[in-house]
């Protein structure tokens, strides 16, 4: 328990302790390294924000109904706020690799959803199909993109969606 009185030996032991302390830092500051992708792997990322279609269509207000409203509150359409859930499905070489339904956030279920999906895929030639069903008023997928893609190892294939232009791949 008592310390060593021989100064050189004491300093030598201290140096040893500092060495162990620094060796811990030396090693764990960088090692063990992690493998994120294998040599022949690439990645697909689907990322976009999107609001599903309205659950119910807008309804034209009658003249009587408009008259009942204050002048500054009069608008031609009465649109319900609730939006449809959004179903996303991703097919890679005819195999379904992703299938997810996103429900609109918010108290009135009127918010837009944020999609962020990524998956490791083998690099090379693939047939990629991304489908989205964002309306309860239409049967099936109402937005689809199907492409033959070629992806190099370590590269990210990015799929985005814009309500005007639809899906795009880059």
């Amino acid at each position: 328990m008592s310390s060593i009185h021989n100064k050189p030996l004491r300093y030598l032991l201290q140096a040893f302790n500092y060495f162990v302390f620094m060796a811990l830092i030396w090693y764990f500051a960088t090692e063990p390294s992690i493998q994120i992708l294998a040599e022949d792997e690439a990645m697909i990322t689907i990322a976009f924000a999107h609001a599903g279609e309205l659950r119910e269509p807008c309804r034209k207000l009658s003249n009587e109904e408009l008259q009942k409203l204050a002048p500054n509150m009069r608008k031609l359409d009465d649109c319900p706020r609730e939006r449809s859930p959004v179903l996303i499905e991703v097919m890679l070489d005819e195999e379904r690799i992703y299938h997810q339904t996103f429900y609109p956030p918010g108290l009135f279920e009127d918010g837009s959803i944020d999609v962020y999906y990524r998956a490791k895929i083998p690099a090379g030639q693939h047939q990629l199909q991304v489908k989205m069903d964002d309306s309860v008023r239409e049967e099936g997928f109402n937005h689809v993109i199907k492409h033959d893609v070629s992806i190099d190892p370590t590269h990210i294939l990015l799929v985005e969606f814009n309500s005007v232009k639809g899906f795009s791949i880059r």
Partner: protein
Amino acid sequence: MLVNPVKRAYLTLESWFNISFGTEWNPLYHLGTLSFFLFWIILVSGLYLFIPFHGSVAGAYQSVEYITHEQWYAAGVMRSLHRYASDAVVITVLLHMFKEFASDRHRGFRWFSWVTGIPNLWAIIALGITGYWLVWDELAQYVAIGSARLMDAIPYISGAMTRNFIAGEMTDRFFILIEFLHLLGQPLILFFMLWIHVKRLSNVNINPPRGLAVGTFIALLALSLLKPAVSQAPADLSTMPQTLQIDWFYLNVYPLLDYWSEGDTWVLTLSITFLLMILPWIPPKKSVPVAVVDLDHCNGCGLCFDDCPFDAISMQARTDGKRFEREIIVDPDLCGACGICAGSCPSSNPFRTSRGELKTGIDMPQLTVDRMRSITNEALAAMDGELKILVYGCEHGINVSRLDSSDTRGISLICSGMIPPTLVEYALKKGADGVMVTGCRQNDCYYRFGNRWTRMRFDGDRKPILRGRADRDRIRSHGGSELDKNGIERDLLDFRGKLLALNQAEAVSSTSLH
């Protein structure tokens, strides 16, 4: 006495450091101050690095490359010091937690310091994460995307953060936000949290011993020169790195995201946090009576106020109409029930009254000064050996009752700091040949200052002092843990020899006088 395996492991490590560093420089006794010292290194090196650093998506990596390679001898070394001191902080903080847990210094009245310490660890980790972000290399990209995924998984938070890190979307504005957080926001929050963490302590010291600070700095400097911190390949949001070297001290949660969902990762992190937070109540510590003030015997001298290790005593204007200016009050929520205050009270003088109960200004109901005097008298009467040695021992150190023999009696106290110096004098006057006071290992008092204050009182450096008339040759201080029974037995054997020699010398001197 059985010592639990965790405590035994800690005490063994502590013993090893005591051998090589001595009790003054033992890093385990200075983990808090050592962490502060590392913060200063991080702060100074960080300020230096801030000058050449360019906070933009396009410029960050290049400026860090300039720092690392063009100016390796100055900014490069600073970068390495900044990084390795940050890693060292995680080690010192984890050791600090282990120490407090292993030595049962996290429960009872200490719950506040423990609970406020856990968010500090997370704040340090978060500060390190944003630091890695600023380099904007592949590791930064990995950390940024992982962090954004975790943030996006929090309910009711707009889940759009991850989309900042898809090709072409990263903007300087986001980068500047992180820079602001790392350079100003997070450090300020951390320092505020550290202030809260030590708020229930008095006489807080934030500087380690100079020798330990110098040794640590030299070690970090050597590591910085031998293995300079370098960046990985520049970030490229259109690709993913195949392999990455990550700093496991800060970034250990991110590889989990490759196997677990963000939600599961949060559940694990929050569960660990919750478990750590409730540790002070697993099991709850038995409550003990706190210090009680008796104004009839308090003159408001303030010695207990100065000595209280936990800021539980405060002074206020006299309320009982006595001629003294001030009086003391004890906050029961803060009181550690160590009894150091009773030891510091000048009224705790066993010579004051020989008949009736000995009252003092501040006392411990579970072991009053009057009771200590009675036990002393009983112990002296019970010994029939060649010598009479009293060993007053702190209950958190060596179990002194195991030392009982025909010439030795152990008297267990809450803390060695609760022994009034006059009680030692009293014991010698009442027939003890020698008095030994043993506390926790030197500089590692369970109640922070018990053994230090006792030593200073005995040396005449702190009031109430051991008076000059007390024979120093017959008084000995010792420190040790439950593992150090052999040490005290050796010391006691030596003390016995010295006392016998003293008695013989005194007998000879007395005979020659006659």
